């Protein structure tokens, strides 16, 4: 028996005994004093009885409320458990989805940073394309398992480099990789372009390591990457249908980046004039032969990315540029402070400039 019930029973007992005690007393029967006493007693008992009734109701309600609160608590616990379960499930699914899309796009969608709808905008981006020269030949030489392993290993390593430099991994097309910088997050045109070139340099270095690794594993084919980079205004956003859309980029500048990659030599990073102007103070580049691009009337000037200035210890000693049409080599250790050689070199260069200008 709980405390409330005990109080109620005691109160009821008091009420009952007071009714018994108020039985007629010979001494007072018929007297005015007796009548008043009975009236007061009756009034008191009625009030007491009403109070008791209310107390009983309140006590009952309180007990019911406690029970209902427990039920609410149980309901909330069950809902919480369900939510936890749903959260785990959502986390697992989103982790799996994250393998299919670029982390920036993943954050954009899953952190609700942008609405997933068919819309796009114009932005200045730096676009990167790469392709593995000789990969098609390799697919015919290797068994499918080895080929898959080599390709996945390559793409895994390259993806890590893309992420390290903050690029938005647009897509893999076989062994080709398309990346852009400047969306959804941009650090400024110059920083975006420098990040793209840094990424390309890291990729080229990694490819050298991978070649050695594969050679040790018996895959002796000498794979090289061709890379092309361009900077320009593109249309970026969701393209496709409401049910299946791609967050990607479109435009002539994208085509130009792709064209840069296709004309690059094996192991070469070829960049456009617009990218060159943004990165020339950070990396050493040499001009290359202009290339003709579909949709652009004049041939497009291209530059070959050599390396970071700091990584070119002999650039101050040995200057070497060559193409199909010309070759320039200068040994600065021999030129040094020798004014005669310096004058001679400047004279030769001036002659070349005059000839080039004259031939125009």
């Amino acid at each position, binding site marked *: 028996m709980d405390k409330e019930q005990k109080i109620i029973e005691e109160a009821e007992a008091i009420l009952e005994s007071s009714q018994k005690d108020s039985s007629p007393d010979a001494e007072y029967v018929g007297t005015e004093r007796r009548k008043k006493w009975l009236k007061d007693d009756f009034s008191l008992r009625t009030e007491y009885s009403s109070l008791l009734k209310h107390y009983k*109701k309140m006590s009952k*309600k309180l007990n019911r*409320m406690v*029970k*209902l609160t427990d039920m609410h608590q149980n309901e909330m616990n069950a809902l919480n458990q369900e939510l936890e379960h749903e959260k785990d499930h959502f986390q697992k699914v989103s982790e799996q989805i994250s393998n299919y899309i670029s982390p920036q796009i993943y954050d954009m969608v899953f952190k609700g940073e942008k609405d997933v709808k068919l819309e796009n905008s114009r932005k200045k981006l730096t676009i990167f394309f790469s392709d593995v020269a000789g990969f098609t030949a390799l697919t015919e030489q290797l068994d499918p398992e080895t080929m898959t392993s080599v390709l996945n290993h390559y793409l895994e390593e390259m993806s890590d480099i893309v992420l390290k430099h903050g690029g938005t991994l647009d897509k893999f097309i076989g062994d080709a990789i398309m990346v852009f910088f400047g969306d959804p997050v941009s650090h400024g045109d110059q920083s975006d372009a420098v990040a793209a070139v840094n990424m390309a340099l890291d990729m080229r270095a990694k490819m050298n390591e991978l070649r050695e690794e594969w050679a040790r594993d018996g895959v002796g084919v000498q794979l090289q990457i061709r890379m092309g980079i361009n900077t320009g205004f593109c249309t970026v956003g969701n393209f496709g249908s409401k049910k299946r859309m791609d967050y990607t980029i479109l435009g002539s500048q994208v085509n130009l980046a792709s064209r840069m990659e296709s004309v690059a030599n094996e192991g070469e990073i070829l960049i456009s004039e617009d990218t060159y102007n943004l990165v020339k103070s950070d990396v050493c580049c040499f001009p290359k032969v202009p290339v003709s691009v579909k949709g652009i009337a004049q041939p497009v000037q291209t530059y070959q990315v050599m390396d970071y200035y700091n990584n070119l210890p002999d650039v101050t000693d040995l200057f070497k540029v060559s193409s199909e049409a010309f070759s320039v080599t200068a040994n600065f250790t021999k030129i040094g402070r020798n004014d005669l050689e310096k004058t001679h070199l400047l004279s030769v260069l001036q002659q070349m400039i005059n000839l080039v200008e004259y031939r125009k």
Partner: protein
Amino acid sequence: MTDLVIEGADRTPSIQCLFALANIKLAGKSYPENTGKFYAPLMEWINQFFSTENTLTVDIELIYFNSSTSKFMLDLFESLEDFADDDGKNITVNWRYDEDNETMLEYGEEFEEDIEHIQFNLISL
């Protein structure tokens, strides 16, 4: 006497008190920011209704409610019980619940426990 109609919202149920039909309908979710304030017009309407009328049907179809609403429900049923017990009013409460919502059935059963003077029906939908 005028009808009382309150549109349902995210946190509050729809309320329809129709004088001509002698019927009250309460449906939806109930976790108002201020439960007492939200349900005050309903209690007021019931008091006015019984000043002239003797029969009332209350249809309750909640899908979720909080502890404050539980407290209000207890007050509502107590008030209806008093009208039936003290004034002889003829009152029916239909506690409607989705057949898949076992929790709502349990709540209905719990409320039914204290009912003595009004007709309390548990109706599976």
